[in-house]
């Protein structure tokens, strides 16, 4: 029936049972994460943690279907005092979450805990960029756990047919668009390039297009849109050119992945977290390749970082201490190497790329390197505040209108900036 809701989705993602309870477990940590498929690395990480810390038991809650629903569950938990002890909110939801929970005293500032570990430990394990992903209003509320920035996935056979060199993927957007045009000319049934900001389920790919050109979505104070500049204009013009010059059709995001996997698209851009999924979809149809995201402005340009951070929402001291051990472990090299192997995410810990963890694996899996190679270009996934999801929908609609050719790029951008500003104010 039409009314039957997709809440079943959550139920379907049955979480592997947490490791067997231990007699000596003194503290049980209640942990919530988003995306049921993530159980495949959360569970082995929890097992490894419990082997090293037999006095702590990790009990996972039913995972939330996605970051937004997790956010909602956390807000509800805050009201009813049923927060988990540790949660893994998405980077783009962390500021909003921290700003709601902090005044209620329901989220722990990790700064003092990091200071206790010592400056040497901090510098050895984490790049400042990675720590910055967990900071809100100058406080360290989260530790980056999964991190990713968009990469190119391409079909080397179509690239070759379009006269390109599969071993040298273009590093400029003009060259990407031109390659798409040539692929479209050589294989009229196919799309040359698809950059599906018209249907992507967040504004992440759109931010990437602005940020790579040196632009930012928000001003330094974070209270007004800043993408009405030259970088924004270049980005929205490029969005239209994918359709006019690279044979892109405006279809759904899943449809795009399906079409790419069946050999119907030359190049797509997506999260490296989907590397395993897309590799599986492609099967053996063609030798899938990936490349780093082309960046126009090498000085100021970058890519927005998706993923999630671990936050501590436990209230009592014993749980907080155990939670910090778990969070530290999760951001540590052993846990990171488990998560990275199973997804394609970037490791958030400096030690994780060492030989005994991921070194050999990266050599055997060159497709996973594209994301790692652009790690030094990581920028925050900018957050518009409470109206973020609403702003994303509005922007997506305007982008679709521009890409369809209904609205000229300049006018579309102007409206997008004006409406973003208006929605940010209230």
């Amino acid at each position, binding site marked *: *029936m*039409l*009314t*039957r*809701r*997709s809440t*079943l*989705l959550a139920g379907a993602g049955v979480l592997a049972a947490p490791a067997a309870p231990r007699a000596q477990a003194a503290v049980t940590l209640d942990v919530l994460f988003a995306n049921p498929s993530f159980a495949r690395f959360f569970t082995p990480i929890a097992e490894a943690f419990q082997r090293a810390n037999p006095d702590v038991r990790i009990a996972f809650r039913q995972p939330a279907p996605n970051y*937004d*629903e997790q956010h*909602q569950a956390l*807000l*509800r938990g*805050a*009201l009813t005092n049923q927060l988990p002890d540790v949660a893994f909110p998405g980077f783009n939801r962390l500021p909003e979450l921290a700003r*709601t929970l902090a*005044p*209620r005293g329901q989220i722990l500032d990790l700064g003092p805990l990091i200071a206790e570990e010592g400056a040497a430990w901090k510098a050895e394990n984490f790049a400042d960029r990675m720590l910055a992903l967990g900071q809100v209003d100058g406080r360290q509320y989260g530790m980056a756990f999964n991190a990713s920035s968009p990469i190119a996935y391409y079909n080397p056979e179509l690239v070759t047919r379009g006269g390109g060199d599969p071993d040298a993927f273009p590093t400029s957007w003009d060259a990407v668009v031109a390659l798409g045009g040539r692929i479209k000319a050589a294989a009229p*049934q196919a799309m040359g390039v698809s950059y599906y900001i*018209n*249907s992507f*389920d967040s504004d992440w790919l759109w931010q990437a297009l602005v940020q790579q050109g040196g632009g930012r979505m928000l001003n330094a104070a974070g209270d007004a849109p800043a993408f009405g500049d030259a970088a924004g204009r270049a980005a929205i013009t490029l969005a239209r050119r994918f359709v006019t010059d690279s044979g892109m*059709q*405006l*279809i*759904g995001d*899943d*449809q795009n992945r*399906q*079409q790419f996997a*069946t050999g*119907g698209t030359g190049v797509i851009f997506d999260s490296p977290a989907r590397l395993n999924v897309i590799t599986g979809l492609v099967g053996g149809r063609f030798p899938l390749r990936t490349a780093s995201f082309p960046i126009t402005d090498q000085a100021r340009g970058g890519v927005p970082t998706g993923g999630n951070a671990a936050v501590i929402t436990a209230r009592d001291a014993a749980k907080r201490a155990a939670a910090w051990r778990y969070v530290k472990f999760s951001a540590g090299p052993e846990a990171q190497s488990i998560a990275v192997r199973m997804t394609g995410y970037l490791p958030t810990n400096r030690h994780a790329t060492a030989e005994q963890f991921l070194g050999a694996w990266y050599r055997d899996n060159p497709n996973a390197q594209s994301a790692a190679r652009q790690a030094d270009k990581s920028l925050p996934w900018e957050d518009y505040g*409470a*109206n973020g*999801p*609403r702003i994303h*929908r509005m922007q*997506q*609609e305007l982008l*679709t*209108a521009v890409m*369809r050719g209904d609205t000229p790029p300049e006018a579309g951008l102007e409206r997008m900036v004006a409406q973003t500003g208006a929605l940010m104010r209230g």
Partner: protein
Amino acid sequence: MTSPRQGAEARAGLAFALPAFALILALLLAPLAALLALSVTDYRLGALAVQVVGLDHYAALFSDEVFRRSLRNTFLYVAFVLPGAVFGGLGVALLIHARSRSRGFYEVAYFLPVTATLVAMATVWQFMLHPSLGPVSALLRWLGFGEVDLLNDPSLALGTLALIGLWQVIGFNMVLFLAGLSAIPRDLYEAAALDGARTAPDRFLRVTWPMLGPTTMFVTITSTITAFKVFDTVVVLTRGGPLGSTETLLYVLYLEGFQYFRTGYAAAMTVVLLAFLVLLSILQARVIDRKVHYA
């Protein structure tokens, strides 16, 4: 004067009715009251402070372009689905009712979409309607319609969802009509034949259709409500796009309440949706009731 015995009976009666009444209060009336109360506040999920804004939300609703568009889309959707759901269900039921040996097969075949979970079927629909991979698109190309993208063309997307909605609901309505058909006494047909109703259309118009009155009324009202509440196809297939052409009332309500967390505003929207449903149901019941013969 009430005798002691009558008083005891009344108390016992009250005691028996109390659990049911308490449940009605807790499960139906109290949530409704909470909804009405929320709809006049600016409550956001997680907020510490709440202000009463009176009827501001209701005023804002009708100048909200997104809400008005969703209202238009929903009415269009209902207008498309309702006739198909009622007459399609009736037609299928009439055809199947006349079968004897193959009836079981057809019943199951038409009822399958009802049992299929739409979220699971979404992948199939997405593939079927894929503009370059899907068999439906290939068929349309072969028939000479050119490149048709049923889910991503703003002028076609809502119609496509309506067709999927029909596909889901016809089987359900068929079962209801079949039950109605089985309940019609055979001797009515014999009497009608004696009175000169010899052809099938005659029999249908003089006996079947009037006798199906109560069923038709029920099917019409439930189909209207189902169509009004269209949601899961929107979520899994279009997410309201392209260009907002498939944003329906319930989907916008979901966005406001569960994605934007504007709980107060979403509550006001829910009240409006409820009002529409109640009004429509009363209206239909009134109109149809006058023409229905209860056997």
